[in-house]
């Protein structure tokens, strides 16, 4: 994906989120009209502060919202021309969208291998064994862990969650903070993996990240959201050179990185709202 | 005309519904029949049937509810636990209570017997008490033992759940058995609910009991006999009045052959004069007149008619009130309700002694190829000892 894509509209969008509104528990309005597009074979990233609604957006796409008493009350989500708004999650998985949930939601009372096999639940081909080995090649640590996955360290669980998504071989992966809790070395590796999966298998990705730097470099297009709204979007270059982005997400950009020690005020947030 | 409020507590569901349903039906049919045929001296009986599922607290709650609203002048009741729980309440409220519990504890109206737990002035039931019935059975058993020419002391065992009903005659009967020359073994507990009882049967078999008293109701006895037959128990079973009937004979099939049990009424269709009235009563809930009513049904009818007769007497003696009905009951001597001759056993109640009868009919049954017969083997006259009052 080396070349930057100038406009998200340049390629056919596989996934279109059209002005959706999401309500939890029938009362808590969280998303107020989010629209975004993910073109075929690209990596699109979604950034934003805590509580902005990034995870909610992903769950609205994958249908998992339903399992948390949430609902898309307006707008719609289309995947490959098909309306998938409020469809049950397992149906959406079978259509080819796989979400890696935030906070490493692995199945704790199963082994690593069993978790991986479950990742491939919707597949019926023979390649499962081979793919398990592939995951182990990427994350050799996992291979040595034979006990219950619940005893893995945080980072190991994160590896497993990513590995499980690789097993699914979906058309599209929604990644919710994949680099969370990983060591710097592994963060780099995970982004390498993300790019290589994207490139080699042509899997489209929607990536939610806090590591804006990494995410922006990996993506072709990005959105920034705050309090349930998209406040900024643009392709990689645009975002990387945006002054606000530099200040709040990218640590000053070209300038000397300022030390965490010297930040004296908390309330310097810029809000686009 | 004024109505006569009567409460009817029945066990139509729950662990004793197997016998509770026919008995309750007998009472209801009898009451409806009475109302259809002139009532009690022209007064209609107004009765409410409440299913309390053999749950004593529920019976007490129902009683309290009745006393707060309909204020019955008499009650047709059911189980031992609930009737014994209500003894003091009804005495206080002066409500005659005819139960289907034949617990010996209910037979002492004054409490003069040392064995009495509590005086039960307002309690009545029709038939021999459980204690007397069991005494009659062991009496019969001893005769049987001798008739068969066996040597030594026969062994007797009481079997039943840990529940007031099976427990009621436990000690009284064991004492009499001992007196008659039985060796009394440790009682065996088995559940009132039908359940596999092979373990208990193995104990029974090992104990070598010659005579085993079954204190539960028919449903649980069927299971017990099935289990015991499988295990190969050789015992003469002696069943209580609620423990064996047409239904259990059919259900247990060959496994139940030879059970000796207490019967408180002639079987349906016997050649006795009262059968005609009985058939008419039965038609109250079965217009075809085809159903064959089990023994429990017939006893329910008798229990109701004794009450009706007492009400009539009370009416003449100044009004149908609890105390008057009691007085009337206490004056019955070898009484048989009109029209039910040969169906209801002549019964006598006095102000001092509520043992209506101490005569015990012992029957046996035989099942073969889908048919069965019931045969009377003996009528045991149990002594009416003063110290057995209330025990």
């Amino acid at each position, binding site marked *: 994906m*080396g070349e930057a894509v100038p406009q998200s509209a340049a390629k056919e969008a596989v996934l279109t989120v059209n002005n959706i509104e999401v309500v*939890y528990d029938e009362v*808590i309005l969280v998303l107020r009209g989010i629209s975004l597009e993910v073109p075929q074979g690209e990596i699109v990233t979604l*950034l*934003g*502060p*805590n*509580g*902005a609604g990034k*995870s909610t957006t992903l769950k609205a796409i994958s249908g998992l919202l339903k399992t948390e008493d949430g609902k898309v009350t307006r707008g719609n989500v289309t995947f490959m021309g098909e309306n998938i708004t409020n469809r049950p999650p397992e149906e959406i998985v079978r259509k080819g969208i796989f979400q890696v949930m*935030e*906070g*490493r939601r692995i199945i704790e009372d199963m082994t690593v291998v069993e978790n991986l096999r479950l990742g491939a639940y919707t597949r019926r081909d023979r390649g499962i064994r081979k793919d398990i080995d592939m995951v182990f090649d990427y994350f050799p*640590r996992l291979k040595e*862990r034979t*006990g219950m996955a619940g*005893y*893995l*360290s*945080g*980072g*190991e*669980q*994160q*590896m497993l969650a990513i590995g499980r998504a690789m097993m699914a071989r979906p058309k599209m992966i929604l990644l919710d*903070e994949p680099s*969370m*809790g*990983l*060591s*710097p*070395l*592994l*963060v*780099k*590796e995970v*982004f*390498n993996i993300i*790019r290589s999966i994207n490139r080699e298998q042509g899997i489209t990705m929607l990536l939610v990240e*806090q*590591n*804006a*730097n*990494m995410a922006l*470099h990996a993506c072709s297009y990005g959105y920034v959201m705050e309090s349930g709204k998209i406040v900024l979007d643009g392709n990689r270059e645009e975002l990387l050179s945006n002054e606000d982005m530099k200040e*709040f*997400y*990218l*640590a000053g950009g070209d300038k000397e*990185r300022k*030390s*965490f*020690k010297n*930040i*004296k005020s*908390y309330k310097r*947030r810029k809000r686009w709202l | 005309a004024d109505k006569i409020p009567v409460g009817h507590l029945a066990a139509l569901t729950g662990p004793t519904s197997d016998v509770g349903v026919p008995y309750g039906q007998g009472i209801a049919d009898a009451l409806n029949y009475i109302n259809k045929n002139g009532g009690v001296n022209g007064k209609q009986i107004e009765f409410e049937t409440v299913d309390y599922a053999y749950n004593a607290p529920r019976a007490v709650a129902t009683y309290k509810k009745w006393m707060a609203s309909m204020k019955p002048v008499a009650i047709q009741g059911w189980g031992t636990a609930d009737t014994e729980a209500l003894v003091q309440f009804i005495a206080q409220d002066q409500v005659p209570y005819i139960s289907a519990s034949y617990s010996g504890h209910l037979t002492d109206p004054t409490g003069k017997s040392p064995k009495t737990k509590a005086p039960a002035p307002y309690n009545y039931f029709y038939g021999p008490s459980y204690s007397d019935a069991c005494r009659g059975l062991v009496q019969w058993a001893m005769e049987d033992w001798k008739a068969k020419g066996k040597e030594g002391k026969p062994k007797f065992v009481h079997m039943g759940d840990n529940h007031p009903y099976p427990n009621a005659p436990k000690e009284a009967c064991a004492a009499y058995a001992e007196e008659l020359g039985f060796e009394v073994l440790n009682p065996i507990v088995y559940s009132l609910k039908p359940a596999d009882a092979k373990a208990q049967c193995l104990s029974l078999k090992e104990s070598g009991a010659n005579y085993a008293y079954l204190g539960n109701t028919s449903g649980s006895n069927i299971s017990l006999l099935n289990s015991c037959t499988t295990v190969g128990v050789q015992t003469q079973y002696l069943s209580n009045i609620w423990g064996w009937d047409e239904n259990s004979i059919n259900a247990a099939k060959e496994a139940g052959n030879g059970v000796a049990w207490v019967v408180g009424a002639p079987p349906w269709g016997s050649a006795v004069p009262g059968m005609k009235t009985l058939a008419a009563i039965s038609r109250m809930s079965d217009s075809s007149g085809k159903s064959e009513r089990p023994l429990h049904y017939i006893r329910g009818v008798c229990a109701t008619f004794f009450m009706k007769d007492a009400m009539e007497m009370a009416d003449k003696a100044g009004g149908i009130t609890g105390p008057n009905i009691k007085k009337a009951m206490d004056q019955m001597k070898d009484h048989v309700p009109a029209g039910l001759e040969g169906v209801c056993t002549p019964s006598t109640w006095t102000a001092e002694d509520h043992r209506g009868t101490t005569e015990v009919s012992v029957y046996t049954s035989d099942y073969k190829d889908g048919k069965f017969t019931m045969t009377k083997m003996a009528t045991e006259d149990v002594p009416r000892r003063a110290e057995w009052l209330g025990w």
Partner: protein
Amino acid sequence: MSDPTSLLQVSGVSLSFGGVHALTDVTFEVRKGEVFSIIGPNGAGKTSMLNCVSGRYQPQKGSILFKGQEITGMRPNDRCTLGIGRTFQNLALFAHMTVLDNIMVGRHHLLKNNFLNGPLYWLSRAQKEELRHRRDVEDIIDFLEIAHIRKSVAGTLSYGLRKRVELARAVALRPELILLDEPMAGMNLEEKEDMARYIIDLNEEWGMTVVMIEHDMGVVMDISHRVMVLDFGKKIAEGLPDQIMDNDHVKKAYLGEDTEEPETSQPAEEEVA
């Protein structure tokens, strides 16, 4: 033997689960008033180390001294009374309680009312006591800027906010030693800056000694006084932040500087910043 400046002394601690050696003969010391960071690759045993200090795990070998007192066999709830508080890597809030109640639980060992006088609320001193502590808790809430979610049910918060509430809860314990397990995971730059500020204030103004596990090297370098590196359960380095950064082993095993560069224009260090 106890050095008045030393708050926590861990000596020769080993811990294994079946065949997995989570910790092997680890020895270190945390001095009063410092910010001490533990870094290391995923699965190195960092969390396990905190678990040994807070009492969740019992090391098979070695001893742990807190304020000169042996705490190795002590129950976790008693250690908290001594002055050890912590946050968790995989969120461990009381999901169905409000944020406020979550933090109030932190006051548990400081409160005196109980099941005998608590129910008599108005008649006993319970009400006064509760309100007094409530004021302290409000201070913490103000300090961590979570006033707006005070009454929210913790389980419905976004990941980042939950981390902050966890910190508030740990602070409410008024510990002398606070153990933070990846406090900045799942936060963007701006939020990390805030978090760093909070930690510095806790350390400098509230006088808490901090032990922190963190993968963001920028944060670690900037705010910690000393750093310890674990790898495969063994301590491989300890020292001032700058020394650690220069350690070859650390560079290789943890930061991954020798691995293939990601396809971005930025050098690796700045990416994680």
